[in-house]
């Protein structure tokens, strides 16, 4: 679905000079078309990940596979509160946010499959990529690192007096890092137009939130930084959108940094290999049956008069797009080995080929594909 050229949600454009207080001054209304668009992004996120699971089982995904099952609403609804020119930095469960910002399914598939024409040309894994033009900056694995980076991005908006906002995602785990603390504090004192979205999904890998913090809720941390905070139901895409939109509008008005906590639940493991042995019995099933964000949103749309055939048309379109993207991604080739040496610096353009490799186009005849990173589900092998 084409990204709307001006404002995606609400169309509100407050004067940056107007507001100095954090008083709500936000238009969070959505048109019927926009409400259907939210459904499209959520469905695309889920269907694309389901396709990735198939590819993973066919060993076509080279590294690990990270799911956002059950978190589609928080990713999509929050990103939808931004408009063209804004920049977000996603985390590993923000595929939906990246799609909203303009990442395409074929890019995602090529990334996971380590293709030569993937966005990072095979250098980085999964959804670790960005495009500042479209408005997203890729994450790295160490958690919390993107908070200070996005503080700098939004500091620049402020220094140039640009009417732009930044949004950075962290999970409950990343709030325990030094980078999170330093980054959000810096952004706060510099009054950077930054929204820090904390996705409270219950677990950081195997660690429950109760072992991550004694704070009753993540949004309480806002008090310590002297910034506004808001907490919303992350499995309600409209509530997520509205809470984020208020924070985005506040930032755009000159109201500085704020926290939006989105309460959700991670229904799959940290990555596909994780068997979630640490999750209490019944917990995942309860969220799946009682609080699935797509099921909930479909019920809401039906109550608002959206017809089944409208939903079916979106579903069919999503399936068609995922199929087409898969065909394209599968046809792509692997990276040329020598490309590995390019682009460490602007100048020199490529690293030196070491003397023992001179004149060679490849290091080995066959690129072995280990079953995993050596994590626990990998079958033991004999001495190499």
């Amino acid at each position, binding site marked *: 679905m084409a990204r709307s050229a001006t404002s995606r949600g609400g169309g509100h454009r407050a004067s940056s000079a107007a507001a100095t207080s954090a008083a709500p001054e936000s238009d969070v209304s959505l048109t019927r078309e926009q409400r259907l668009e939210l459904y499209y992004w959520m469905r695309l996120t889920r269907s694309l990940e389901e396709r990735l699971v198939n590819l993973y089982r066919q060993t076509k995904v080279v590294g690990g596979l990270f799911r956002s099952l059950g978190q589609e609403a928080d990713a999509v609804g929050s990103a939808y509160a931004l408009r063209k020119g804004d920049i977000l930095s996603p985390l590993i469960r923000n595929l939906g946010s990246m799609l909203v910002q303009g990442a395409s399914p074929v890019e995602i598939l090529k990334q996971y499959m380590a293709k030569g024409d993937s966005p990072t040309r095979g250098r980085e*894994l999964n959804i670790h990529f960005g495009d500042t033009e479209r408005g997203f900056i890729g994450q790295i*694995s*160490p958690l919390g690192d993107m908070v200070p980076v996005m503080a700098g991005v939004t500091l620049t908006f402020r220094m140039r007096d640009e009417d732009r906002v930044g949004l950075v995602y962290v999970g409950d785990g990343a709030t325990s890092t030094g980078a999170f603390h330093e980054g959000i504090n810096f952004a706060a004192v510099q009054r950077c137009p930054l929204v820090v979205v904390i996705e409270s999904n219950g677990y950081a890998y195997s660690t429950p939130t109760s*072992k991550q913090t004694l704070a009753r809720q993540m949004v309480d941390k806002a008090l310590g930084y002297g910034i506004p905070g808001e907490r919303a139901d992350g499995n309600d895409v409209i509530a997520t959108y509205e809470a984020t939109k208020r924070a985005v509008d506040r930032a755009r008005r000159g109201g500085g940094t704020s926290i939006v906590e989105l309460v959700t639940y991670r229904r799959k493991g940290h990555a596909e290999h994780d068997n979630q042995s640490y999750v209490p019995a019944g917990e995942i099933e309860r969220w799946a049956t009682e609080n699935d964000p797509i099921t909930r949103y479909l019920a809401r749309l039906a109550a608002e008069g959206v017809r089944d055939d409208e939903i079916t048309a979106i579903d069919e379109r999503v399936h068609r797009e995922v199929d087409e993207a898969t065909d394209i991604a599968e046809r792509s080739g692997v990276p040329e080995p020598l490309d590995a040496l390019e682009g460490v610096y602007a100048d020199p353009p490529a690293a030196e080929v070491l003397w*023992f490799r001179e004149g060679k186009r490849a*290091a080995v005849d066959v690129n072995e594909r280990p079953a995993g990173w*050596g994590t626990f589900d990998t079958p033991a*092998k*004999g001495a*190499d």
Partner: protein
Amino acid sequence: MAEITYLEAIREALFEEMERDPNVFMIGEDIGAYGGAFKVTEGLQAKYGEARVIDSPISEIGIVGAAAGAAHMGMRPVVEMQFIDFIANAYDMLTNYVATARYRAFLPTPMVVRGPSGGYVRGGPFHSQNPEAGFIHTPGLKVVYPSTAEDAKGLMKAAIRDDDCVLFFEHKYLYRRVKGEMPSGDHVVPIGKARVAREGRDLSIITYAATVYKALEAAEQLEQEDGLSVEVLDLRTLAPLDDEAIIATVKKTNRVLVVHEDTRTGGIAGEITARINERCFAWLDAPVLRVTAHDVPLPYAPSLEDFVLPQTSDVVLAARRLAAY
């Protein structure tokens, strides 16, 4: 006695040291009920409880610093980095605080920081690193990087008993791929001692960790195809370096190839070459050569990662060049 894997050998050492010394305890992310990302610490919390096997928040600075404080008080903490790449977060704590503690404040800091390291696993730039060089360059830290299951166990026990901070690099490619039979009794391998992994006369390959196996494969191929007798020296400890063993192999074969998976510039091969030049240059019949990773971050795609990292064929080529010099 049955063979166990490199990973199981580390776990066995952790169990034995926890049992032997009540001051030994562990801190790490997901190491308790879950047993760690690679299951190295599986079963430890069940046996020793949450007080001695502590699941921490995602806070590398916090847990390394806390380990240092506990170590000052007489405890012997073992800290897990979920991937050694994340040790970068604790770089300040390790290099500014821990490494200087004994020298500037006479505070003993007996602690171990351990974690899965290394590539050849398609882990990409943040799950494949070999960051040992930065720490080798820091006086006050010891650095260990075993290649065999026996050494993994024996060096872990030595590291926990050492009175200073030991960084214990575990190669994740080797975790479940190599096995060994553990010597009976209290098996401790001294820190600072290299091991001759293969005896030879014509040239020496000095290496450590996963590339020990690349060197051994190359040595076998060179013997079969070229009739060359290749010695392989497995350093095991990178700080302090075993100068005696390095000099001995130089004097024995007079030709040296240093191989490591770490990138070339600032890698330990440069240090080893310099020491050889200073201590036994006259014994060399050829310049010391290096086979290392290329100077780039480690990429994800198999074709790229394989190009960046040293391969057995590179070791063979370099050894032939050296033999023909």
